[in-house]
């Protein structure tokens, strides 16, 4: 099937209703979501490279939600929703934690990764967000007392520069703002 046809088809099925996956907060289940992402990307007619980009971005976001959001507590879930709005595929990853800004690990979109410093200080983590920013077309993070919503957007029709770093819109509400 031509990819245009697939996108057409998707506007029927995905635009009205979403795919929703809930997994226990254990890293082994990250793979279920990652494979589903591949299916959705292929269904939408993404080319091989974009399929890989989407798969990796979803994997990173789900890993973070399991580890940082839910502290790997298998009694609570990480949710993932795939849906289409305004010519874009959205992947919304939700957890029940609070966003933790970690200035020394989060590499901002306009910085290059300074591998030399990393290697000197044995810093082998902190590349997830850095990669996500380079793989998605847009990114939104909302965090409040009810948890974190991490939403990644992928254009259905390839536009402008692919894989340009995106701006990272983050909206953090103080936990107590909602609590009382």
């Amino acid at each position, binding site marked *: 099937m031509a990819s245009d046809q697939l996108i057409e088809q998707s506007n029927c099925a995905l635009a009205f209703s979403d795919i929703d996956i809930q997994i226990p907060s254990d890293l082994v289940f990250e793979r279920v979501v990652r494979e589903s992402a591949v299916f959705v990307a292929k269904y939408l007619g993404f080319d091989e*490279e974009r399929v890989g980009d989407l798969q990796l971005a979803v994997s*990173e976001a789900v890993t973070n939600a399991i580890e940082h959001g839910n502290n790997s507590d298998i009694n609570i879930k990480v949710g993932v929703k795939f849906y289409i709005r305004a010519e874009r595929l959205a992947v919304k990853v939700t957890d029940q934690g609070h966003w933790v800004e970690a200035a020394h690990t989060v590499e901002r979109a306009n910085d290059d990764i300074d*591998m030399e410093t990393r290697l000197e200080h044995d810093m082998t983590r902190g*590349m997830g967000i850095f990669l996500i920013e380079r793989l998605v077309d847009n990114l939104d993070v909302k965090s409040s007392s009810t948890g974190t919503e991490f939403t990644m957007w992928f254009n259905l029709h390839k536009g402008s520069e692919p894989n340009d770093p995106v701006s990272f819109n983050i909206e953090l509400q103080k936990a107590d703002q909602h609590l009382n």
Partner: protein
Amino acid sequence: MTLKVEQGNAFTIIHIQNDSVDATSAKEIAGIKDRMNQTTIMDFGPVMFINSAGISALLKLVIEARKQGKKLYAVNVTAHHRKVFEMVDMLRYMPIAKMEDLMPLISA
């Protein structure tokens, strides 16, 4: 098993057996650091997926190789994984090579 290790006099070839280099295979990959050799080759043959948890494990090998003055190479890397390795500036420390080109190093 995630890894198959081939040991020579001055070389080690680490054949990754998994299709994913991710959180669930990271520990075993990082654990290979004591078995590296003057020339150490990571064979990514069956690998279909790599994420930052996997890259993190590979970086532990890179750091250790530097400390020990050893040289790491990657073979059988897909186009997408090359792109990801480039993004995180990995290729400077673990260049991608062709197995044929490494033959002189391992048959020496």
